[in-house]
């Protein structure tokens, strides 16, 4: 007797875009999974056409509320690539410090407000905060320290306006950095406890054989960089991205699946960065990872939560290291002449590699724009993880399976639709 079960998880009105998960089970085996959580930023690609190259950071910053710095940095680096300018030295240092602030803010929000409740069986962070107020308060204080970096260097309370192609509108003096430095040193110490806390969470047994993809740099744990590597032999210039990666329209929805040409799905984000660049972490971060129970290699996506905590610690550590060697650059930005050219860049957003490419005319106006967010690139990998998750969980009660699916999706810290009850379960049996 054939038993077919369909699980369809419908979008909620509370999320932007649609979050859809459809699972079909035939005779006790998963026969189909369809998954989509993100719309590609086509509106912004269209909006950018006709604008001057200088406007790109301000427009792209509005693509994502939690990672505007990532979008701005990929944008300005792509423009600089097109116009033949290299921003190095102290200006690059400041960019790295600013980006550390964003990693801190984004990761802490995800770890404590969105993901940790899953591991401890709470429906949301509010319930977790009732039982663990000190943990949540500390997380918010650390998050505020990250916000202080962005406010200080980015120039505005919530939304950075100080970033421009070529550098910044204003750069601080060494003395102005002093109070921030004190805050970051405190925060660095306080984060050690947070890393340890994540290491003690209960983790499902789950292993996937990922192809990890991340930026690579000769000396730095990657935030910006010129090379893109994987654990299966990929080693290319970032400018060659489109020759190796392809976006495929999925027939059943407007979702895009990003693939490594000739190979298939891949994973980008903290777990990929960690696996490919462990040796580039600071000694403090490496030790904390070890103490939290992480090996230099980790293929359990649920342990991404520990990796994010390690990256927060690294970001504080790195920001302190950079600020201590800072000397005020002059001028605050490099100048450049517009020209007809194409430029591209990749930076490591909190969620993974963010690719942008711009084609400019001879006045520096944008003719075409291409933006590939990390969540879009991970979409296919999430679907594969869900396949394994459902296959392992066929004997679980429906509620527990739903919860495990949500937790699996949240391993990727996906942009758009990560609310507590992200997936509403509809069961159809035939």
């Amino acid at each position, binding site marked *: 007797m054939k038993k077919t079960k369909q699980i369809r998880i419908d979008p909620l009105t509370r*999320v932007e875009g649609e979050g859809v998960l459809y699972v079909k089970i035939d005779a006790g085996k998963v026969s189909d999974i369809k998954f989509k959580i993100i719309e590609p930023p086509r509106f912004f690609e269209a909006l950018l056409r006709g604008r001057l190259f200088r406007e790109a950071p301000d427009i792209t910053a509005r693509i994502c509320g939690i990672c505007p710095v990532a979008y701005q940095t990929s944008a300005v680096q792509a423009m600089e690539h097109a116009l033949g300018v290299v921003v190095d030295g102290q200006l690059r240092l400041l960019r790295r410090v600013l980006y550390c602030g964003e990693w801190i803010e984004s990761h802490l*929000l995800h770890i404590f*407000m969105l993901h940790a409740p899953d591991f401890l069986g709470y429906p949301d962070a509010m319930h977790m905060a009732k039982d663990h107020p000190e943990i949540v308060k500390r997380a918010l204080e650390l998050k505020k320290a990250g916000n202080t970096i962005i406010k200080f260097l980015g120039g505005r309370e*919530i939304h950075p306006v100080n970033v421009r192609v070529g550098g910044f509108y204003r750069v601080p003096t060494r003395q102005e950095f002093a109070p921030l430095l004190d805050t970051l040193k405190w925060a660095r110490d306080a984060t050690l406890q947070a890393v340890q806390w994540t290491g003690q969470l209960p983790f499902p047994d789950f292993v996937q054989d990922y192809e990890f993809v991340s930026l690579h740099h000769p000396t730095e744990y990657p935030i910006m960089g010129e090379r893109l590597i994987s654990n299966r032999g990929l080693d290319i210039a970032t400018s060659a991205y489109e020759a190796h990666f392809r976006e495929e329209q999925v027939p059943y929805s407007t979702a895009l699946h990003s693939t490594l040409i000739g190979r298939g799905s891949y994973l980008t984000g903290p777990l990929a960065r960690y696996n490919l660049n462990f040796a580039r972490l600071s000694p403090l971060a490496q030790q904390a990872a070890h103490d939290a129970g992480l090996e230099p290699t980790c293929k359990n996506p649920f342990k991404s939560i520990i990796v994010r905590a390690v990256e927060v610690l690294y970001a504080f550590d790195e920001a302190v290291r950079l600020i201590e060697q800072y000397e005020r650059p002059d001028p605050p930005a490099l100048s450049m002449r517009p020209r007809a050219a194409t430029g591209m860049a990749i930076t490591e957003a909190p969620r993974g590699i963010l690719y942008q490419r711009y084609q400019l005319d001879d006045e520096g106006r944008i003719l075409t724009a291409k933006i590939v967010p990390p969540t879009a690139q991970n979409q296919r990998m999430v679907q594969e993880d869900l396949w394994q998750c459902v296959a392992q969980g066929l004997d679980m009660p429906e509620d527990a399976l739903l919860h495990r699916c949500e937790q699996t999706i949240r391993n990727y810290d996906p942009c*758009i639709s990560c609310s507590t009850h992200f997936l509403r379960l509809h069961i159809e049996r035939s």
Partner: protein
Amino acid sequence: MTNPEVLLIGVGNEYCGDDGAGLAVVRALKTRKLPPAVRLLEAEMCDGASLLSLWRAQSQVILIDAVSSGAPAGTIYRFDALAQPLPANLCFRSTHGFGVADALALAYTLNQIPFALLVYAIEGQNFTAHIGLSPEVEKAVQVASEQICQMVSLWCTQDMPASLMDGE
């Protein structure tokens, strides 16, 4: 309480249509003459958790955001968020799942609430990626900013009324 800080926070994303309603209200208020104690803040798409760090215990806060509840476009909701929990059918839109309602619930749990917290929620209709407000939302923005302007002026010229709603 004399000379408290009055904080008007508009939340939203102007590139997602009616989701920009909160920002539009704050921008309308920037053109008005307001008492010096009033601070205006455009919190563009910030995650809810960041909201908690914007106010102090002695702040009087008015938060303005767009919502999706199924009501007619341009409907204006007003809540004293310290007197009652926000209705569950009100969906404050958020790209990262930690929006205004979650932030307020957390503020309560952690006792990080301001002295006063009024929430204005404007019902949006079209949240797809584009710039511009629906006509009904545009009207609601004008009505809301007028009300807030009057209320805030009253707050700053007399002692805090027993109920926040006395200001209209």
